[in-house]
């Protein structure tokens, strides 16, 4: 029984990371209606920025903050230079462009920092808090605290500030938003910037657990997509719950279905996505979308 609860705790920890990257995906999807396949690679790039700063001697709290800020700028620039020209083209074009971004960011990381594994210090001490028979890692608690803080921050930003309202307005009806004076392009760039910042946070949380290399986010991004899709791709709450579902089911299947092996674990999010799409295509928290023909 303790073993079971231990697995649950571990699952939640991984789920928090999937959720943070999933939130970034949802954010971009909500604001620009684009699924950013490059999100994971952008996060890896951010983690490298932090590593570089620490390597130059910047203390690591500051390095983390600077990396997130730099990522926000990179996200906004990526939108303005690459995404904006194709934003209103068909889905195929957009998917291809974000796949192109995926390759570009991946190989930029590789060419700046090489393919050898680097290690990034963890933001939290690697200690365990013991509750009876259950051990909870401080790092895991920290991850969850950060995720909760981000979620609350996003909620406040979107629901209770002028900028948030403008962001939502631009996303839901671009023409009307522009007519009432919302700076549409700036809002879109902000959306991409915030998402890149979120991605950076998840990259910074992942890098110490795995090791930092250009393909670090390869499987994480798939779990994050699974989290976002399970939650409905348009719902922030959905992404968080989806992250938890994916993290928990992954932890449980590793614990109780050992014959799957570590290689085939990747099939699990596939099954989850397929199951959700067949049973409830709009996701657990998503709304039905109407399309004009």
């Amino acid at each position, binding site marked *: 029984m303790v073993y079971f609860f231990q697995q649950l705790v571990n699952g939640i920890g991984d789920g928090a990371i999937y959720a943070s990257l999933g939130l970034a995906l949802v954010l971009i999807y909500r604001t620009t209606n684009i*699924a950013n*396949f490059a999100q994971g690679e952008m996060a890896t790039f951010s983690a490298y920025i932090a590593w570089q700063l620490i390597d130059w001697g910047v203390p690591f709290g500051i390095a983390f903050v600077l990396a997130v800020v730099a990522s926000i700028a990179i996200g906004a620039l990526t939108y303005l230079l*690459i995404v904006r*020209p*194709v934003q209103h*083209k*068909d*889905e*195929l*074009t957009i*998917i*291809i*462009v974000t*796949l*192109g*971004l*995926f*390759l*570009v960011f*991946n*190989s*930029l990381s*590789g*060419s700046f920092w*090489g*393919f050898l594994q680097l290690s990034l210090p963890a933001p939290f001490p690697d200690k365990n808090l013991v509750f009876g028979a259950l051990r909870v890692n401080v790092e895991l608690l920290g991850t969850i605290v950060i995720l909760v803080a981000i979620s609350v921050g996003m909620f406040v930003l979107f629901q209770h500030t002028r900028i948030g309202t403008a962001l939502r307005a631009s996303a839901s009806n671009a023409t009307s938003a522009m007519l009432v004076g919302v700076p549409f392009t700036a809002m879109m760039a902000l959306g991409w910037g915030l998402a890149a910042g979120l991605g950076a946070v998840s990259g910074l949380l992942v890098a110490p657990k795995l090791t930092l290399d250009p393909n670090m986010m*390869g*499987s994480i991004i*798939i779990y994050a*997509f699974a989290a976002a*899709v399970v939650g409905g791709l348009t719902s922030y709450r959905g992404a968080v719950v989806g992250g938890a579902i994916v993290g928990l089911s992954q932890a449980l299947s590793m614990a109780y279905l050992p014959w799957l*092996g570590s*290689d*085939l674990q*990747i*099939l699990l*999010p*596939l099954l989850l*996505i*397929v199951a959700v*799409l*067949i049973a409830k*295509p709009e996701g657990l928290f998503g709304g039905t979308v109407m*399309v004009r*023909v």
Partner: protein
Amino acid sequence: MNSVEMTLEQPARSVALPVAKALTGLAMVVALLGFPLVAPGYQTFQLTGVMAYAVAALGLNLITGYVGQVSLGHNAFFALGSYAAVLAKLSLGTDSFVSVLIAALVTFVAGVLVGYPAKRLRGLYLALITLILAVSVVPLIKQFKAYTGGAAGLLVDKPMPPAWFTLGQDIWIYYIVLAFTVVAFWLIRNFVGGSVGRALAGVREGDLAASSMGINVNRLKVVIFGVGAMLAGVGGALATFTIGFIGPDSFTMMLSIGFLAAIVVGGLGTIWGALVAGLFLQYVPSYASDLGQALAGAVYGGLLIICMFLMPKGIVGSLIQFAQHRREARRAAAAGTGRVTR
């Protein structure tokens, strides 16, 4: 006014055009047949690879270019076809030709099975599901290493030429691959040239509109997915018999992205774009890797983005468009209006 003149003029042109087209086609076939007799062996080997890739790329172009469904799982079908052919040859002892046909059958069935749930999904969701398919290929190959040889791979006997064929094994393989390629391109050209092609264009532009025109959208999507997967399988089997080796490293997700990049650069929704794609897949990676491991990805990614910005129709699509504009301009000039309305 112009449109009336165009329709009146149509019959006169439509006699000359097919003859010209048939002649170009014939010239191409003759050139391809003669190629290995004059070219050095290594180039023959490379061109064999080009054709095998082109067949597989044609499959993806059918799925993505013609129907507009983004599939990132083409490496999975390419791998499945390769392993099906090799395993058929090893365990059933079929000859290479029959093995390729078995690979075609297996991948068609697999494509239909994947395409069946995929028919409900458009764009993004399909891309996601096929992405997961793409990344699970290598782990699956390693998992079943009793059959696949695992990470080390398997050596495959290349097809042996019959006694009367004296030009050597590589040229014999070239001709086998050429035969499959010509048949595949010819079949698909006829397939998309007629009513199916128009139905496909309808589905690409909008599911709902197409189904209200009486097109069975779901059935069409499943069939196309099956045929596309089958072509990937045939291409994979041909490539494997050409190389004589099979291993998981040839089937990573990068192959899928390579396929996608290749058909985008070649021309989405065009038959000959797939041939350009074949050339792309055979030659670009080797040149890109000269730039270093890291920059190969940047070359692919940059090409994808630049192509979408400057040449969304790809090389072949742009050529077709250019030819059409010229034809229309000439026709307008001949009609004496002196005015091009477009």
